[in-house]
């Protein structure tokens, strides 16, 4: 029999056997044993962030760029509580991740000991699985379970809380290759009868429409979606998380839908007679008023999580399946179909109200910056923060194959963008990352510049600075009589802090402020040249620019504010 090893040794062994090459971590009293063990380990890149919330967003960016389960390691107490926003973000956007938290020794749990919190209890509703290791003999099994659960089915974050003494007690040296989990059976089959029923509906539809969400990307089913749509001549609209699952220059691609979706997409959703939705949970930002959502349509819903089906929208043909297996079959069934009249109708809507682009302005137009980014960086991964810039990016960035659009969709977490861009760059060092962010969200995690600069990560940071919290300001403009309550970030003397250029200089990185519309492209081209580390570009834009069209929260998709 093999000799017993300590928990900390088994921990490192487990990560190596899982092929973990990067850990996003921040040290502290209850993980010093593990970090000591990692000091001796080879082949694992230790990314020392500057704040635990950012670590989790970095891990999200890494997971999105690599498709791998990301690993975060933090200490107990504040280290653990700081991760909560990130965990919730990962949960709502189905990102595979394991968060290891240190914990006080078993005999101190429940004592309100120094840096003790019940992190498993606190994160119960935002993790796919969470557990405190209470017995050294369970450590290997639990870590294996964590990896199995986080990456399969509908992916999500798993939290494993490891008390200090579990890390040092000697025990079983084996790390299992598989654990049977009796309460966990992700769906791997697809109901053929339901699929055939769905196919028949689509085939006989006069105005069919595909609504594709992030589940298509997670299942890597983009090619099957395209094949199916092309064979059947189906127009495709995407959710925010589904952006990019359909080539955006494709004639069948209608655009994004929802609160800030294209006019044509929302009209098509309202008028379609069969809606084939795949890998989306019908979030309220997509549906608007549920009573008036796709009122004329029979709805087919494919989702890996049966709990997502018929929750928000009553569905006629529910199909619990992975998007790939469903679309693969449907693509096999598919025969030619003529939807010419319907497609022309949709094109008519697009002509009637294309995405609005303010013209003849002396100021920089944020939509044009997005278009320029799209043109100059056709291969970069695009990361956004949350707010107006995020919606402009979703509207005006045209994604090519192999380009990821990494954004916080479900939780809408300001502060997500910069660390996620860092994680994406770490996960895929050969691919530049363009971060589109705002002056508000960027300030929520700008401390991470220390690692972006320190590691020389190829990130072009584009701050759309309107010196205001633009998205809320837009609501104030449209719905609150222009009473701009607490959305102006300028000081009482009218000055904006910080001076991002001088701030960037403190990190020895290139920075440039652009206030002339004619300089936008040139600045981006310059940044692209010899990209060796982060570059900061600050685009000064007007606080009065609006994201349009807009569907007011809770109203029907067809009630769009166009101007």
């Amino acid at each position, binding site marked *: 029999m093999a000799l017993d090893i300590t928990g900390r040794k088994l921990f490192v062994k487990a990560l190596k056997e899982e092929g973990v090459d990067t850990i996003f971590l921040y040290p502290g009293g209850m993980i010093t044993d593990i970090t000591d063990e990692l000091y001796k380990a080879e082949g694992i890149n230790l990314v020392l962030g500057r704040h635990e919330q950012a670590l989790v967003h970095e891990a999200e960016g890494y997971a999105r760029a690599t498709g791998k389960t990301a690993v975060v390691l933090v200490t107990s107490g504040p280290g653990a509580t700081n991760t909560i926003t990130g965990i919730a973000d990962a949960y709502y956007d189905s990102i595979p991740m394991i968060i290891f938290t240190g914990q006080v020794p078993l005999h101190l749990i429940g004592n309100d000991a120094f840096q003790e919190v019940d992190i*498993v209890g606190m994160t*119960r509703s935002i993790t*796919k699985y969470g557990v405190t290791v209470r017995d050294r003999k369970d450590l290997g099994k639990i870590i294996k379970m964590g990896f199995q659960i986080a990456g399969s089915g509908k992916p999500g974050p798993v939290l494993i809380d490891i008390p200090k003494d579990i890390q040092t007690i000697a025990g079983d040296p084996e790390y299992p290759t598989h654990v049977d*989990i009796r309460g966990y059976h992700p769906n791997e089959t697809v109901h053929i009868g339901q699929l055939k029923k769905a196919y028949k509906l689509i085939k006989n539809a006069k105005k069919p429409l595909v609504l594709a969400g992030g589940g298509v990307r997670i299942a890597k089913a983009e090619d099957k979606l395209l094949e199916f749509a092309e064979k059947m001549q189906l127009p495709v609209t995407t959710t925010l998380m589904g952006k990019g699952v359909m080539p955006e220059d494709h004639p069948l691609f209608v655009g994004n839908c929802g609160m800030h979706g294209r006019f044509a997409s929302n009209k098509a959703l309202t008028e379609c007679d069969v809606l084939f939705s795949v890998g989306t949970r019908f979030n309220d930002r997509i549906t608007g008023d549920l009573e008036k959502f796709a009122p004329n349509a029979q709805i087919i819903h494919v989702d890996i999580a049966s709990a997502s089906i*018929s929750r928000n929208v009553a569905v006629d043909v529910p199909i619990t399946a992975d998007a790939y297996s469903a679309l693969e079959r449907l693509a096999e069934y598919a025969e030619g179909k003529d939807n010419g009249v319907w497609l022309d109708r949709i094109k008519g809507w697009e002509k009637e109200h294309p995405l609005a682009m303010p013209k003849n302005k002396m100021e920089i137009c944020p939509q044009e910056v997005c278009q320029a980014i799209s043109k100059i960086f056709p291969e970069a991964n695009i990361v956004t923060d949350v707010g107006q810039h995020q919606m402009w990016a979703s509207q005006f960035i045209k994604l090519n194959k192999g380009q990821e659009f990494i954004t916080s969709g479900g939780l809408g977490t300001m502060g997500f963008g910069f660390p996620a861009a860092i994680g994406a760059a770490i996960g895929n060092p050969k691919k530049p990352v363009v971060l589109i962010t705002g002056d508000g969200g960027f300030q929520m995690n700008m401390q991470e510049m220390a690692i972006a600069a320190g590691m020389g990560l190829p990130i072009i940071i584009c701050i759309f600075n309107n010196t205001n919290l633009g998205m809320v300001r837009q609501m104030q403009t449209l719905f609150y009589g222009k009473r701009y309550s607490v959305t102006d970030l300028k000081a009482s003397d009218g000055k904006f802090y910080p001076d991002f250029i001088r701030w960037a200089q403190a990190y020895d990185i290139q920075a440039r402020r652009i206030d002339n519309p004619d300089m936008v492209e040139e600045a981006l081209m310059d940044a692209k040249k010899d990209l060796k580390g982060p570059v900061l570009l600050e685009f000064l834009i007007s606080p009065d620019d609006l994201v349009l069209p807009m569907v007011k929260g809770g109203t029907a998709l067809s009630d769009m504010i166009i101007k």
Partner: protein
Amino acid sequence: MKNRWIALYVENQVGVLAKVSGLFSAKSYNLQTLTVGTTEREDVSRMTISVMADDVTFEQIKKQLNAMVEVIKVIDLTTIPIHMKELFYAKVYDLNEAGKTEVFQIAQVFDQGGNVTVADVGPDSALLQCMLTERRNNELITLLKSRFKKIQVVRGGAVAIESISTSCR
């Protein structure tokens, strides 16, 4: 909105009760009663849960429970033959002799083979021990409330098991 019943097999582990009950509070589901105890297997517990819900919400509750890693099996008891009983105690205070006699009479009327008994008596009080269906318990409590000024009720929540199927009889 209807009252419905679910039985759950769950891992007998720390935090599982909190996870299951947390679902009901987090998603605003209307939990009526929840009982839990171990089964013939030490590592498995069984819960009996009663909820007030419409059809759509009830389906959603079952799916959400099924999705939990710690939940091994969900059984919908609403539409299958079951045996279900709830234990409760009622202490009746400030009784004169006539009142005490009445408590005994009520116990007799509700009793079916020893499942309603007077478990204890004092100079001016009596303690009823009842194991009836939840509905019958409701009726008994309503009656006690209408007849006596001061009562104290402790309910245990219902426990249910599927009937032995006719093919096994």
